[in-house]
């Protein structure tokens, strides 16, 4: 069956009732690619694109609350550097018009650009159930293992909460791909510095999940970003990630790139800081 509810509440109801027997679809970048390769859907389909209340962006208490159905095209317009740039690096405009942040989080690809940027923003994700209500999870606790997350079979991702631009000092993004656009990252990195001085650093394509470099972050807390510290952080990041060898890139290269990218995104934070200071 194909379901096309026009409210998110109705979608939640369907998901709660059908659990694993129904798969949500928005941009189709996962499900329909499989279909085109001759795989059958096998389950019912829950189309979330008719739910108009699932594409909202709201402000609340220094946070931005993004509906799960927020598209990359919408994210591109945000005034949050790492997320906007990460979103702009996803596919071409056709994909960004349809792909959603919930889809990115639910698919949980280790290379998910949106996931990496949100991790650096220390975002929280709201998982919703029609009867049990909602629960907020820090994104760092959401990704569990390769394409496994805390999202229950009977739940949908309702919202993502991130700091507003004003609650954020600076953020940065860098992605290495094999060409100038429409890339799956070989390695990508995002970093954010918050008003309280906290720095978060996240990487994609270097572990089974989009990962936060928590060990490296510890080094950085409360310290001025000197050249020596950046160097130390770069080495720590490289040591912390757990990439694999595959035909896209070797583990060696990915590790080395984590050092380079860690330094670059952290330097970028610093430059942005300086720019903001008169």
């Amino acid at each position, binding site marked *: 069956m194909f379901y096309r509810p026009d409210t998110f509440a109705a979608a939640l109801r369907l998901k709660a009732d059908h659990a694993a027997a129904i798969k949500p679809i928005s941009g189709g970048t996962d499900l329909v690619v499989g279909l*085109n*390769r*001759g795989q059958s859907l096998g389950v019912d389909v829950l189309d979330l694109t008719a739910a108009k209340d699932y594409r909202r962006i709201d402000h609340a208490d220094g946070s931005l609350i993004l509906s799960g159905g927020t598209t990359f095209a919408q994210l591109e317009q945000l005034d949050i550097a790492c997320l906007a*740039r990460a979103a702009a690096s996803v596919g071409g405009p056709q994909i960004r018009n349809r792909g959603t942040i919930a889809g990115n989080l639910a698919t949980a690809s280790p290379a998910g650009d949106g996931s990496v940027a949100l991790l650096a923003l220390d975002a929280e994700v709201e998982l919703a159930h029609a009867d049990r209500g909602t629960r907020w999870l820090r994104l760092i606790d959401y990704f569990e293992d390769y394409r496994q997350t805390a999202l229950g079979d009977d739940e949908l991702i309702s919202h993502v909460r991130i700091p507003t631009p004003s609650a954020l000092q600076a953020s940065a*993004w*860098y*992605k*290495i791909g*094999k*060409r*100038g*656009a*429409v*890339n*799956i990252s*070989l390695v990508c990195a995002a970093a954010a510095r918050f008003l309280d001085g906290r720095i978060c650093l996240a990487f994609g394509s270097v572990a089974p999940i989009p990962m936060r470099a928590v060990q490296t972050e510890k080094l950085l807390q409360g310290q001025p970003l000197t050249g020596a510290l950046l160097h130390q952080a770069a080495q720590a990041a490289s040591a912390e990630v757990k990439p694999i060898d595959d*035909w*896209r*890139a*070797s583990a060696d*290269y990915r590790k*080395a*790139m984590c050092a*380079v*990218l860690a330094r670059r995104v952290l330097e970028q934070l610093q430059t942005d800081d300086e720019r903001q200071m008169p």
Partner: protein
Amino acid sequence: MNQPVRPDVPPSPTPYAAPPHGVVGQSCGRLDGATKTTGAIKYGADLFWGRAELFVKVVRSEHAHAEVKSIITSEARAVDQVMGVYTHNDMPGTNLQGLILRDHEVLTSGRVRYMGDAIALVVAESEATARLGADAVQVEYEPLPVIDSIESALAKDAYPLYKAGNIMGGKRIRKGNVDEALAGAAVVVTESFETQSVDHAFLDLEAGVACYQDDLLTIEAPGQWVHEERRLIALALGLEPEHIRIIQPATGGAFGGREDISIQIYLGLAALKHPGKTIAMRLDRAESVRARHKRHAMRIEYTLGAKSDGSLTAAKVTVYSDEGAYASTGPAVMRKAASHATGPYRVPNVSVDVYGVHTNNNPTGAMRGFGACQMAIAYEGMMDRLAIKLEMDRFDLRIKNLIQSGDEVTTGQHIQVATAVECAEAAMGKFREVNGGLLVQPDEAHLRRGFGMSVICFGLGYGDGFPDCARARVAFDDAGKAVVYTGGVDVGQGLINMVAQVAADELGLQLDNVRVVAADTALTDESGSSSATRQTYFTGNAVKLAAEEVKEELLDIAGAHLQLHPHEIELTSGFARAIHVPGKEIAIKELVAQGKKRGYKLDQQAQFKPGTLCEDFDTGQSPRSFVTYLFGAHVSQVLVDIETGEVKVERHIACHDVGKAINPQAVRGQITGGVAQGIGMALMEEVISKKGRILNGNFTDYILPTIKDVPHVECIVLENTDPGGPFGARGVGEPPLIGAVPAVLGAIQDATGTAPNILPCTPERVWRMLQDGTNA
């Protein structure tokens, strides 16, 4: 890189001022432009609509190398809506295919040699049921050792893929005394290069329809040579060619990738088995990548010797090329690689050995550049290395050694009009227009800018004594329009405009008074393949010859009407005009009507068959291996991130001497498109396989250059008339790609100080190269 530097897109072109008469040399819009922009034109898969009745799906091998022990089709036959399942036992003809050697079974009877080998054919009422049927065919294999690389094929105890072993054949060139010359050389440079397997990746996947009715098998599917396809289909299916009609639908790119026959024989077999039904078949991207031939991956070992003043004295070249499972056009690619081993340089002592090595990878065959492309990477890479060793300027070293008119190339052929120097100077001149050619290095310590150059030559046509001929017919229809008939296929390169413009110019017509009937074996004569950069030269000439004869008739009719000698009349802008008497004229349309009434044929055929001479078996020498040569030079400027290995092409200049640009816009399109493919080959494209299984057989993973990867290409089109070409034209198709790759590689070397020798230069390879001093 996140902040790409890219020159602004070019300003809009100034409107082209049409010359007073003649359409050769004009950038006439495509005759099929309107149908291509409205979506009306029909490519292979578009023919399904309203016509397809039965669908074909091929069962392909699950092993790269195995003995097929049994094929059980009973379950597949039982699938609902499956109308037939066929194996080698059902093939009415030889069941063999192959452009040069008939070495490849259409449906495998015994041994599969790569994962694209076809085993059975399922015909069903829908694509979905055909797929279900294909899944239900049970094949029992006895796996054999898989040879997945040149190295493993050449290993001492390697499993022999054929009775004769794993070496398919070779080609050699011997000129002078290389060993002596190298021993006496002041400087010797040795390097080895590895080029990669590349997919043609045309967007329009193999698709078409077929129907067998009234003893005629009609197949509408895209290829590159309809008449040869007819011969091959006839052979495989045991039909007479007269009972087969091939019609080429609109075709979305080829680049050599449609030279080997693709779906046509399967369509034909299904049509024969289900007479009266319209059969449809298409490959999806994964199947296309899995089944179709690729560009040869080559391992090239090159030693170059020179005097201390930089004059080249000797080149010793050994090439191992991965031929894959079957010959395809490999033997010809090997010959072309050998004959282009030293490119446009004067090298008195040459020794070349090219070996084709069978593996269980995809067959390798034609792709834009055809062996000459890989060699240019090597010889231009060698020139850069030699320049460093000699501490000479790269440009000066090249100029010093480039052939001049009258000099000979690798095969000993003397080139009448050699314009390599002119091309090189024009390209460098253009490059130096910005800041005198001095590069400004970026402020960021991790970014390095550099430029590279290449000069290349290319023998067009099949060459090497292979029969190469084009025929054409030019006739006036009853509406007074000139119709050009050619067997040549337009795969997107613009053949239709080329022949129309040649005929229109010759006949003094505007382009809208010409139409073209192309690539239909029932209506057109053979014009040879759309490959080898040959159609402008060959079919262009044939069309011009036929048009000249029609023109003679027109002048004769006009002479009678205007009471003038035909020599006093010119055909221009749709009129026959008295050259010396203003106002005395008659419309060509009127002449045609009069002529037809008075028994003029106004319908002429012509053939162009210039002929070449075989290269000597032992020495590879031939006084005329190719009908003519093309020259080109590129300069490329790149920005390299030395920490990440990312490379951005910032600027690219391409100069090509095309003899005469029949349609300058189309020529520029070929150049910019070739450069884009060259950038793809240099930086990102690579078919990656493991044990014969392709790992990146889709566009997510086999990546092509996007708009963000290709800079605004600065084209320089030189027009040094070719004595034998139509209106002096030579051609343009392949050289732009050939020139682009080494220029980009040279730029990476210039930027980083380390010369790449393994392609493509992905970020990781460049990074590794900078870590280790080599990108191995």
